[in-house]
């Protein structure tokens, strides 16, 4: 187990390094003049040059690359080109908000989705199942910004049930927070319902066809008992994996939703930074998102290992 964890850790580090490299490449793939982008086309050239010199964006690429890596190691990504503020706090704040929203969305969706998945799996090919599958398929294939817009119009504007913006007043109470984030969270929840429900259904069906369920049935267990004692644990393994991955992505921010609800999460931050070639923010952002993703998947794997001793044995080896 320990060896396995260590291995995972090393691999993650390599991945992080690759991430940094990827961002660096993306940011420098075109000869672009950061200073010019920041100051705009109407700024005098000398001030542009001055800015570039100040930011070090006129150094030769290798030098910049080395600097980027050094930042990665020291985990100090300097200041934002744009606001001149230290990057890490910005990122942390943003990813915190994205995380909050993600948690909310998953809280809404996971129980329902899993329940639906199990139910559908048990009622395989019956109308109920078809309905759930179709709903899941449809919902998870409609882009979230579409769902978001509909929610805004119907719930927010026409019915005026919920605030249309996900910007809670500072120091808002939990209740307020819940109210303000309700709609974006709902939008995401709807999208993720599909993924999770379908995954759970697949898992359930696979397990239901397995020999050990036959054993259980032959013992004379009731469906309920079988579900609880034998199906659940095994069927949820793939679901957990999926949720792990999706959490990773959710922290990355669901830009479509964030844009519509003007929620200042990771997505908007990154978009803003990209538009203004704010390379420190970009790099740090991507790295942090990467870290969260890896943490999430690792957590998922650990849970799976805990759920399934055989997997544990494998990872032990």
């Amino acid at each position, binding site marked *: 187990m320990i060896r396995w964890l260590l291995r995972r850790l090393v691999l993650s580090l390599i991945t992080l390094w690759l991430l940094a490299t990827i961002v660096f490449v993306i940011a420098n793939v075109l000869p672009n003049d950061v200073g010019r982008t920041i100051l705009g086309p109407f700024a005098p050239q000398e001030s542009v040059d001055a800015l570039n010199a100040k930011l070090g964006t006129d150094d030769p690429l290798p030098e910049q690359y080395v600097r980027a890596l050094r930042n990665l190691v020291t985990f100090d990504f300097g200041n934002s080109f744009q606001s001149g503020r230290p990057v890490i706090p910005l990122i942390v704040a943003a990813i915190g908000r994205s995380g909050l929203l993600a948690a909310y969305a998953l809280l809404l969706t996971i129980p329902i989705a899993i329940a639906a998945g199990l139910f559908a799996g048990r009622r395989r090919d019956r109308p109920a199942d078809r309905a759930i599958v179709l709903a899941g398929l449809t919902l998870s294939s409609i882009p979230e910004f579409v769902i978001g817009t509909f929610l805004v119009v119907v719930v927010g504007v026409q019915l005026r049930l919920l605030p249309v913006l996900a910007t809670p007043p500072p120091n808002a109470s939990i209740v307020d927070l819940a109210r303000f984030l309700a709609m974006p969270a709902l939008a995401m929840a709807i999208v993720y319902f599909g993924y999770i429900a379908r995954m759970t259904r697949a898992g359930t069906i696979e397990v239901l066809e397995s020999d050990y369920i036959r054993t259980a049935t032959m013992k004379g267990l009731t469906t309920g008992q079988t579900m609880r004692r034998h199906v659940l644990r095994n069927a949820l393994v793939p679901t957990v994996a999926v949720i792990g991955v999706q959490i990773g992505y959710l922290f990355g921010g669901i830009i479509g939703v964030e844009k519509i609800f003007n929620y200042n999460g990771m997505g908007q931050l990154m978009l803003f930074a990209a538009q203004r070639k704010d390379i420190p923010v970009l790099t740090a952002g991507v790295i942090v998102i990467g870290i969260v*993703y890896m943490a999430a998947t690792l957590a998922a794997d650990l849970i799976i290992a805990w759920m399934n001793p055989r997997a544990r044995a494998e990872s032990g080896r």
Partner: protein
Amino acid sequence: MAATTTAVDIRSERAKARRESRAVLFRKPGFIIGLAILAMWAVFAVAGQAITPYDPFNDFAKGHLPPNPEHLFGTDRLGRDVLSRVMIGARDVLIVAPLAAILGVTAGSLLGLIMGYYRGIVDDLVSRVVEAFLSLPVILVALLTLVVLGSSTLVVVLVVGILFTPIVARTVRAAVQTERQLDYVTAAKLRGESGLYIMAREIFPNVLGPIVVELTVRFGYAIFTVATLSFLGVGIQPPSPDWGLSVSEEYTNMISGKWWPTLFPALAIASCVVAINLIADALQSVSSE
């Protein structure tokens, strides 16, 4: 001789089986519906102005007319007929998305073959890169790249395609790894075939199935992605009547009750993606049967 006769009826049996599974496919309502919807959009995209009730580009009525007998879907902010624009709105995305999907699946398959076949170092290295890409949301990376590169149809295709590559690669890799366990690969090695030959001629034909399924799935995601990118302003560029773009141009007006220029393109996107997913689903269930 007995063996021969059996071979024959086995063979006819096989043909029958194939016919039957096709029948099953066409008996699946999901598949039919999906196909129908997709076909409809394809027709609209191709026929274009020839069948739209109005000129979707140069025919300016009053802005934001609500749906009415003349304009079934109403008019947009500049007074163009929404129905006409939605009809031909499929054009760009139906070119961009398939290209991106094909690009991604082709590259991904190549990568997956190599990774799956030469395990060891090669696999480890490539896997790292793949993992790295997978650890970021596709939309996000696409967005960053497009903002930096500046978006044009070609760039969108390339970026989306490349971002799909690792995902496809992972699927294909898995398929190849199960395949390479099989004895016929060993047999090929025993008669001294080169790795390249084994990959290309022995394994590839047998992983084609999953690849095809993957292609349809990716196609769906491509539309999803391109629409989202257009919505974010880095995808397909104005003055295209592209659905995602239309939504982004008009969605703020929904607040003032002008929902029609947003709703209809949005529905179009949904219908298209759902259609493809239905098809993919049917294919998958049949191929797994």
